[in-house]
């Protein structure tokens, strides 16, 4: 069951924009969102009236987020929908925008994300069932996975912490990142302990920000005179939810099945991926996910990472934006910000973070619930007309 493929219309990313991910401030969510959307419209070279549907990923701003922001772009009557899917909220918003265009319901669709820090609960706490994981935070969950990974494969605290060294280094090259300072292995390991072996710098900062991506059909490219050399084609959109995996990491197993589905849909192999943005909310995740995606054998990711395979300039640049660890994780906007980074990488517009020759990229998010979403994008080589 594919989301879209040869039987559906091709979909292209034509514009992306961001508001910097940053610590909580007095900036209104309206400004966070508008900044990203206006940049995406300018990047695409189109006007707001061309947008026919909007999906907004958000988790902490309350009901009906889209209209208070987007009314400042002028009256068009465009369809607006809010999307909540935990960390993957705007990944789902992007997926819905892509399917809107692929299915012929819209020619131009906007996916965006916006959030500011606020307290919010999880629905599982309201089920009336006393689940034994009550009170367990995400950091505790991933620290337990780190312990399991070390026990299974003999990995070390240093091997896990090198994920954070790489991603903080990448973040230092990204003016849109929440954290923009390179850190040594000693700084990472010697930072304030949070849970188990995870220190503060191995856990993502949760702040605020905005992100936007505009997708369009081929018909829209022709009608709007879009420069095809700056478009990026969406090859696959896969989304799955948690199954029962016994004692194995559900995050990794869900990533394995969802990525396999996305790669099959795209007609690609793991080795085809030149650049990946993935959900590294906690350092251990990156090791588990590159293995689950098929880039490293089980238990070997730390070795491959230390060898430079996942650096910018390595065989596959993983989290060149800085990932959630350095770019940050304001929740709602994170997924579409991954799409923005992959798009810039595939256009060769990523500046100091550029993965040379990048042709195919993947964006991966997991969200409590638990869901996983993977998109595969490819550079458009030349005008196909």
């Amino acid at each position, binding site marked *: 069951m594919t989301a879209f493929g040869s039987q559906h219309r091709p979909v292209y990313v034509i514009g992306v924009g961001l508001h910097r991910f940053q610590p909580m401030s007095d900036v209104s969510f309206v400004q966070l969102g508008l900044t990203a959307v206006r940049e995406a419209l300018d990047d695409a070279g189109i006007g707001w009236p061309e947008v026919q549907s909007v999906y907004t990923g958000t988790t902490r701003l309350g009901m009906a987020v889209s209209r208070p922001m987007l009314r400042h772009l002028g009256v068009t009557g465009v369809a607006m929908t809010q999307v909540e899917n935990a960390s993957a909220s705007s990944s789902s918003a992007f997926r819905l925008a892509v399917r809107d265009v692929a299915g012929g319901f819209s020619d131009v669709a906007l996916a965006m994300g916006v959030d500011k820090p606020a307290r919010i609960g999880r629905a599982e706490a309201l*089920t009336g*069932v*006393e*689940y*034994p*994981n*009550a*009170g*367990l*935070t995400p*950091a*505790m*969950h991933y*620290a*337990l996975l*780190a*312990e*399991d990974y070390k*026990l299974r494969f003999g990995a070390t605290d240093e091997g896990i912490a090198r994920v954070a060294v790489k991603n903080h280094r990448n973040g230092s090259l990204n003016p849109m990142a929440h954290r923009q300072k390179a850190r040594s292995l000693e700084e990472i390991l010697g930072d*304030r*302990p*949070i*849970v*188990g*072996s995870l220190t503060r710098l191995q856990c993502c900062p949760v702040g605020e920000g905005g992100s936007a991506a505009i997708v369009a059909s081929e018909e829209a490219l022709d009608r709007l005179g879009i420069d095809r050399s700056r478009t990026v084609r969406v090859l696959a959109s896969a989304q799955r939810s948690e199954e*029962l995996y*016994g*004692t194995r990491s559900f995050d990794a197993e869900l990533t394995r099945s969802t990525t396999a589905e996305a790669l099959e849909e795209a007609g690609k192999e793991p080795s085809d991926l030149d650049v990946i943005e993935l959900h590294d909310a906690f350092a251990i995740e990156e090791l588990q996910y590159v293995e689950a995606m098929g880039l490293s054998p089980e238990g070997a990711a730390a070795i491959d990472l230390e060898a430079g395979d996942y650096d910018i300039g390595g065989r596959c640049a993983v989290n060149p934006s800085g990932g959630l660890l350095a770019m940050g994780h304001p929740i709602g906007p994170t997924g579409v910000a991954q799409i923005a980074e992959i798009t810039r990488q595939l256009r060769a517009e990523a500046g100091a973070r550029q993965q040379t020759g990048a042709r195919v990229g993947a964006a991966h998010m997991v969200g409590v619930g638990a869901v996983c979403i993977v998109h595969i994008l490819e550079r458009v080589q030349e005008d196909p007309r």
Partner: protein
Amino acid sequence: MNTSPPADPDRDSEVPVTVEQAGITGLKCRRCGLIDYPWQTFGCQQCGAYGTDLAVVSLSGHGQALTTVVDFDREGRPAGASASVLLDEGPFFETRLRPPTPLSVSPAAVRAVSEPGEATVHFEIVAGGAS
């Protein structure tokens, strides 16, 4: 695991006197055989059976903590602990551990306990307890 939460001077290696070992209530699906914890009436999460297909089962409350971690307060002091627990009957979950919990090399024996007169179940490492 060589890090321990703050020591409780009143606690020794004996069973704590303020809690009692608790049996716990799970479910067994009559259709697919899944044994799950905790008990709920909404439906089997493996096959979707519900109603009379769900049987109440008593579980021993015993199992293994496959991994354990200590969490720290803002001053870097140990504040609590969590574990991934595999019950003898099969259910697997993550949970906060009842403090104070001495942590040892994983896996360690774990058991369910409850305060006298209270229904809420907690899990703790069995003192001295590598499994």
